[in-house]
Each structure stands twice: as structure tokens, then as C-alpha cells.
């Protein structure tokens, strides 16, 4: 059964004054790309340098017109590195390390804060009384043989904004080396990166140097994917993912989109464009980028359930039925009941990408 402990636990933490005197003497954050992005002081220098190189790599590409991408991203001006960089920096501002402990870095700043679209949140659902349904390969099943999860990148700013809005409280994030950042909008743009973003995929001579185009294409696409989570308002805030349905490559995992202009579409279209623009990339290098592009496009669904819990439990019940699994009487009864409900389904569509709130200065 799902619980609602995380937010409450976070909100009830006794947080010291942000950026307290104890911080004195810590190194400052680093600005990269003409100051567009602020990299927290706890991000390893080599990671910051690779990000810089990735952006420089983007500037070296030979972009062709791509009306579909320009339209979807609502780019300012022509499609080129500058307009893409501008788009990105409107959505990403702070880059923090996976070592940043959000439980201690996030704190309430203003109670009773007046958020835009008060009370309107992404359509999440809690099916009260739903039992645990465990079937093999069902959602969120940890797996052996794939190693431990290594963090790649996450748009934690959108998540923290949502937490604050739900509690009518403006939250602040202590960004190491930069001080308190007010989460007045997902567009405040706080991204957390981890070693998974910089680790070699393939240990073979010539394929393990993560500063090469092979890896830059992939990292940039991930960055633009995460940036999309800074968009949206009301129900579309954060462009949240949904559970992939039965039969999908990622069935049962919240790794699909019901928005046609969501993070997977942005990542896919962007990676396709930069791959096409990379005249000097080899066929071998482009192959990975093409596969990632396809993997992202494949996650954009045509139809689905409006509420995430409905998608999750429908998947689990269908999976159990498919496997003829013995899930117990209570779960069987629940699945039977669920099958009789008229769950709200939706056809994928373009979501409203206009941002909610705006960046505030300290």
C-alpha cells in the first residue's frame, strides 16, 4: 500500500537556517556556459567540465531546419545551438550532485505562499483499500543481474516545487556554493546529476572515453529530457510520466508518457536532430543515438489511463491474469472489482507547456 510519508517527513524536519554561518569557507559554485548554468560546488570538477564540453559540442554541430522540433519546443528564432541553449537555460539553472541530501537541503521558506493554479495538481490517484499485488515482473520489482541503480539525472526542482505547492509552502533548496534557491516555479530549474551520467557504457578501446561525441549526444538528450519536466502548469505541471502498459518494453514501469510533447518526445526529437547535425559523427556513434531516439519515441503512448494508480493496478491485474498467477483472494477480488470500474482513459495529446510560477531572486 502506498503511504504518504515522504512529504510529511520532509516537511517536519528540523532544518537549520539555510546557508548558515557554518557554510562559510565552502567553495563557491561554478558558472558555465557564460553563466547560464550554476554548477554546485559538490559536483566533481570533471563532471562540470564534461558538461561544458557537451554544450560546446552542441555549438559545433551543423543544424538543419527541423520545423517539428522548433514548433514543439517553441524555440526563440531559428533552430541552432543558441536557441536550444536558450531553451535549456530557461528550464535548467542549477546543477547539483547526487550527493546532495535533499532531506536536509530542502526547507520551508514561506508558509501560505500564493501559488498559481491553487489546488490544481497533476492527476494522481489513490485507490483506497487496494491490496498489494505482487506478480513476477510486476512494476517496481527490483532485479538481479543489472547491477545497482546508478543515478543519471533527475529534475528534482519540479518535484520539490510540487511538494511545496501541495502544502501551500514555498520551499527553498540549499544549493552547495550558491545558497538558497527559492522553488517558486519548476522553471527555477534544479537538476541533480550522478555518476551514471558520466560512466562508460562499454569497456572497449575507443568506446570508454566519455568525453567523446558518442556520449555527448546521449548526455545532451538526457539533459533536454529532464529540462522538459520544468514545464507545464496545473495538471500538466512537471510533465509526469505514466505507467507503461502490458506488452510494452517497459511494462509496469513509470517510464512512458501520455503527453505527445512531453519529456520523452523532447528527448527523442532533440537527439534525432543533433544526431543528424553531427556531420563528423561516425556511423557507429550515430547508432547508439538512433537507438536512444527510438527507445524514447517508443515510450510515447497513444492512449492510457488518466490516473497513474489506475494504470498501475490495471497493469498488475492484467499481468496476474496473463500469468494465471495466484495473487490471493483479496487481490483477485480487487482485480475483479477494478475490471468492473469505468476507469477514465485518455488519448495522448499535447499538454499545456506554459510554465507555472516564475523564478524569484533571493
Amino acid at each position, binding site marked *: 500500500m502506498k503511504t504518504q510519508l515522504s512529504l510529511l517527513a520532509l516537511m517536519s524536519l528540523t532544518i537549520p537556517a539555510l546557508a548558515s554561518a557554518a557554510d562559510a569557507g565552502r567553495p563557491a559554485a561554478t558558472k558555465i556556459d557564460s553563466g547560464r548554468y550554476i554548477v554546485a560546488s559538490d559536483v566533481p570538477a570533471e563532471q562540470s567540465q564534461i558538461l561544458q564540453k557537451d554544450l560546446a559540442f552542441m555549438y559545433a554541430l551543423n543544424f538543419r531546419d527541423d520545423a517539428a522540433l522548433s514548433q514543439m519546443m517553441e524555440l526563440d528564432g531559428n533552430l541552432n545551438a543558441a536557441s536550444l541553449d536558450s531553451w535549456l537555460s530557461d528550464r535548467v539553472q542549477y546543477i547539483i550532485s547526487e550527493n546532495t541530501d*535533499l532531506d536536509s537541503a530542502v526547507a520551508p521558506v514561506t508558509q501560505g505562499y500564493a501559488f498559481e493554479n491553487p489546488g490544481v495538481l497533476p492527476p494522481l490517484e489513490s485507490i483506497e483499500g487496494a*491490496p498489494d499485488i505482487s506478480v513476477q515482473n510486476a512494476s517496481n520489482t527490483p532485479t538481479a543481474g543489472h547491477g545497482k541503480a546508478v543515478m543519471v539525472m533527475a529534475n528534482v526542482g519540479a518535484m520539490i516545487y510540487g511538494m511545496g505547492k501541495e502544502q501551500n509552502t514555498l520551499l527553498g533548496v540549499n544549493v552547495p556554493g550558491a545558497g538558497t534557491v527559492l522553488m517558486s516555479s519548476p522553471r527555477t530549474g534544479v537538476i541533480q546529476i550522478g555518476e551514471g551520467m558520466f560512466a562508460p557504457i562499454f569497456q572497449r578501446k575507443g568506446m570508454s572515453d566519455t568525453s567523446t561525441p558518442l556520449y555527448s549526444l546521449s548526455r545532451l538528450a538526457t539533459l533536454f529530457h529532464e529540462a522538459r519536466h520544468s514545464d507545464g502548469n496545473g495538471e500538466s505541471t512537471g510533465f509526469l510520466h505514466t505507467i507503461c502498459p502490458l506488452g510494452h518494453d517497459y511494462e509496469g514501469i513509470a517510464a512512458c508518457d501520455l503527453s505527445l510533447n512531453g519529456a520523452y518526445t523532447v528527448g527523442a526529437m532533440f537527439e534525432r536532430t543533433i544526431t543528424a547535425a553531427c556531420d563528423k559523427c*561516425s556511423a557507429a556513434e550515430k547508432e547508439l543515438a538512433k537507438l536512444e531516439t527510438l527507445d524514447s519515441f517508443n515510450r510515447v503512448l497513444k492512449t492510457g489511463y488518466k490516473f497513474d494508480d489506475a494504470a498501475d493496478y490495471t497493469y498488475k491485474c492484467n499481468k496476474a491474469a496473463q500469468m494465471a498467477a495466484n495473487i490471493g483472494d483479496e487481490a483477485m477480488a480487487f482485480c475483479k472489482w477494478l475490471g468492473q470500474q469505468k476507469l477514465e482513459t485518455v488519448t495522448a495529446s499535447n499538454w499545456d507547456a506554459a510554465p507555472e510560477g516564475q523564478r524569484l531572486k533571493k
Partner: protein
Amino acid sequence: MKKHLAIGSGLIAVAVVAFLALHRPLKAPAEEQSSPAGAAAANETVAGAPGSAGSASGDAATSKAAPLSPVEFHALVDEVEKSIPSQSELRKLTPEQAHMTPKTLQSAGIQLGRVAEALENNPNLAADGLYFYEKCVLTDTNPTSVRALCLSDYEKLGERAHLPIRTGIAPANVRDLADKIKNI
């Protein structure tokens, strides 16, 4: 058992739990990070300036490898086929592992790049390449994205080598997906 759909207060917390599960590392947080307020100004470096661009060439992955013999190519595709994760393997991934293209799939992408490179370096391998790609498309345990990439490569190789290819070998979802990259 109380069974009804409810949209109550605090739902965002559920989302947060899910979101955290999706995006946060499994390992325990490291030591507390802190910093002086307003100290973000040092070490500014401008990326994108002339001369600072990352090289789009020069890595060994991009350099021309020696053309493979048919025997070497067959050994390569055997290795590549084994590297492709099955759909069922992808479905066992955690949300964190599946959020972006998983490492296992990325690794297969790099392996498929080796095949593409070998075919580019030795046009005499085209028929063998078509056989490999067709088999890849027809293997329904392969991830949809891999099948779509193989279909795209199959068609482009057939056109480039002026060799006949079979049409209609892929299901509609694979066909539709492959069309997304027809121009690159």
C-alpha cells in the same frame, strides 16, 4: 475492503514518493552539503567559444577500423546478438534503471554501431549484414527499439548495396517506430 477511487488531499505526496523512487539514488546520501549564500560567481568559463568545442572526431570509435573478413563479421554478429537484452530483461529493471535508455540497451546500441561500422568498411559484407538485420527485426523477444533500428538499417543497407530486401517483415509498431529515424 473499502474500494473506491478517491482523489484526496496529499496526493502529491504519493507522487513525490513515486518520483523519489524513480529519480533518487538507492545509496544513502553522503555527508551534508552546505555553502555560503550568494557565493556563486567564481570560475566562470564560457563554453561554445571558438576553440572550446568538443571534437566530433578523433576518438578511436570513429576511426576507420580494418575491414572485417566474413568469418570475423560472423563472430561479431554472434557477439552482438548476445548483447541485445530481451524485452523480459527490460521489464525487470527498476524505475531508476528504466527512466532513461538502460545501460544494457545502450551497450547493445554500441554493439550495433560496430556492425554498422563493419558494413560501412567492407561493402562485400552487405548480404551477411542484411541477414543479420532481418533476423534482428524478426526476433520478437528483442526490444521494440532494437527491432526498429534493425529495420531501418536493413532497408538503408539494401538500398545502399542495391540488394533486394523483403518488405512487410515488421509489425506495425516496429514499422512506425523505424520511420521516426528515416532521415538520419
